[in-house]
């Protein structure tokens, strides 16, 4: 029995005669997608929470979609990524007046998924750095209060709320991340380690995991070839796709020139007896690459390199 299972975080695009498309608009593309990730050994699937709408239209209910996944070799939907576009007028973790909306909209969303056994609700715990700066301790405390409330609510659904720190998120430095977890309740807020995001932000993801391993509820395993050396994290209106430094930040594990030390991270997971799901992600892989190939290469690396260390 393996200690670790592999899940795939979906950002998939398929090449079609109409150009790149997601699988959410076509049952045939969905069939191909599920077969491809199953073929390389994934057993779980992560996705954005709002996909519930399209999937319900395509399959009748989200439960029926999971049954369909199981028929094709994927055992469950593991984690959801909370898709909120933060706005200080409506929903923004550092704006206390918007917390009720964040809690209630998240409650409604989790209600749509309650027939499944979702493990984590992954959230970006603060808005964009550029929209939050200056980042103050009070703003971090406000965010902590927000996610404590959301986490307590999500626990009622059997779902852990867990923080995922994009390199362009307001809570991005090691000091601020540690403060956030100091001020959040371990019962309600976990840490989700995205290897590439931390690396880009100049934070060693392995060291961060070692500091927060008792709070860590999962991972996005992806690589990067670049550290943000241009303050891209503050670039308006967007850092992820529009910063001058690069058009592509993220690569699959094992990429040439990758900065994440995955073998060291696996040794750390083994040392701290992490068990459960590890999620592979390589968003924006189609920028100069291809989702199918990146996905297969990631699992080659997981099975041939990382499994030698810990499986």
């Amino acid at each position, binding site marked *: 029995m393996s200690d670790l299972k592999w899940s795939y975080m979906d950002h998939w695009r*398929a*090449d079609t005669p109409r150009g790149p498309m997601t699988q959410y608009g076509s049952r*045939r593309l969905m069939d*191909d997608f599920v*077969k*491809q*990730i*199953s*073929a*390389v*050994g994934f057993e779980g699937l992560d996705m954005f929470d709002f996909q519930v709408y399209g999937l319900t239209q395509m399959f009748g209910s989200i439960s029926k979609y999971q049954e369909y996944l199981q028929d*094709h*070799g994927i055992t469950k939907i593991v984690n959801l990524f909370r898709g909120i576009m933060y706005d200080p007028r409506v929903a923004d973790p550092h704006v206390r007046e918007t917390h009720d909306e964040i809690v209630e909209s998240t409650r409604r969303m989790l209600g749509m998924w309650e027939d499944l056994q979702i493990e984590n609700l992954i959230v970006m715990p603060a808005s964009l750095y550029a929209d939050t700066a200056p980042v103050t301790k009070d703003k971090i405390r406000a965010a902590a209060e927000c996610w404590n409330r959301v986490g307590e609510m999500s626990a009622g659904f059997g779902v852990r709320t867990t923080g995922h720190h994009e390199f362009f998120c307001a809570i991005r430095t090691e000091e601020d991340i540690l403060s956030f977890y100091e001020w959040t309740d371990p019962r309600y807020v976990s840490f989700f380690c995205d290897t590439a995001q931390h690396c880009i932000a100049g934070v060693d993801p392995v060291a961060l995991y070692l500091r927060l391993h008792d709070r860590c509820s999962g991972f996005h395993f992806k690589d990067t070839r670049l550290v943000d050396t241009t303050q891209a994290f503050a670039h308006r209106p967007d850092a992820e796709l529009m910063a001058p430094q690069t058009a592509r930040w993220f690569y699959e594990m094992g990429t*040439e020139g990758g900065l994440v030390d995955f073998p060291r991270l696996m040794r750390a997971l083994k040392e701290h007896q992490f068990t459960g799901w590890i999620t592979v992600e390589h968003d924006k892989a189609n920028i100069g690459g*291809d989702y*199918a*190939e990146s*996905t*297969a*290469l990631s*699992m*080659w690396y997981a*099975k*041939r390199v990382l499994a030698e260390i810990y499986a």
Partner: protein
Amino acid sequence: MTGTIRLGYAISQWKPNFDDFTRREQHVRALKVIAACGFTGVELRAGTGRWDPLGRPASIAASYGTASAFAGLLRQIGIETVCSWYFDPGEPIGEELSPGRSVLDAGDHKAITESVKPFAEFLAAAGGSRLVVRPLPSAWQAGRLDADAIATAADGWNQVGAATAGLGVRVSLHADCLSAAADAKILNALLAATDPALAGLTLDTAELTLAGLDPVAVYQRYRDRVDHVHLKDTRHVDEAGERLRPHAEAAMLQAGGARGVGRWFYECGTPGGLVDFPALLRELRADRYPGWLVFESEQTPNPARSVMLNGWYARHVLRC
């Protein structure tokens, strides 16, 4: 079937043009994709020149040092062996200053036999066992084949088979859709004229289907001769006989013929696919077929996608 059958993949799909797929890192990425999808063998395709570094044993040596170094790289990636190598004697070989040879010309037999020896030696060293050959030229080039012509070709393959047998490598005749061998009567005559101890048959599901032959029926008829299998699907049968017309390589296979078919070959299980793979697997299992199933997906717009779909099909539908 686990334990007797093995799954391989034909790497030629990554090289649709002569100047594609030249760099080592491209080979490594392709091999990792193949390994990640559960395939443990790889089939190479004979080629020529500096832009085909996997085309010949000497080319592999030039890029990878030695055959054993290349085999070591494969094992490191998770691929056990080069299970097979495809060879068409009619293709030019620059290294041998050959514009192409014909098995229908007895005068070419000795040269063909000498030409394939390095491939057989490489396969033997790498743990491979099949030299997959094009048994006859394209139908439009071969013209009408009488019994003497078939006998000449058969004699040529018997000679080649005898030369490779000592290395533990069997010659296996592969009838592609354009070949004169993709015809029931000619295939039967050719197999009857070749020595079963020296020449087997590669069953290629889509090529036979496209040529109007039922691959399951072909297997049932020649089950004692089938020693290698290529699995791919097609949505089309060439009912108009375009494969038999002049320059069918370009006019039909590349340009799509009168129907403008964009792609003749697909992954196993493609919607609208014509090949009955479960029926073929039932036959193979009944015979405890001990060889390789080599999946192919030439003409794919995305090789990695095709390997993944074929890997899923092998595991979840064929239960291999």
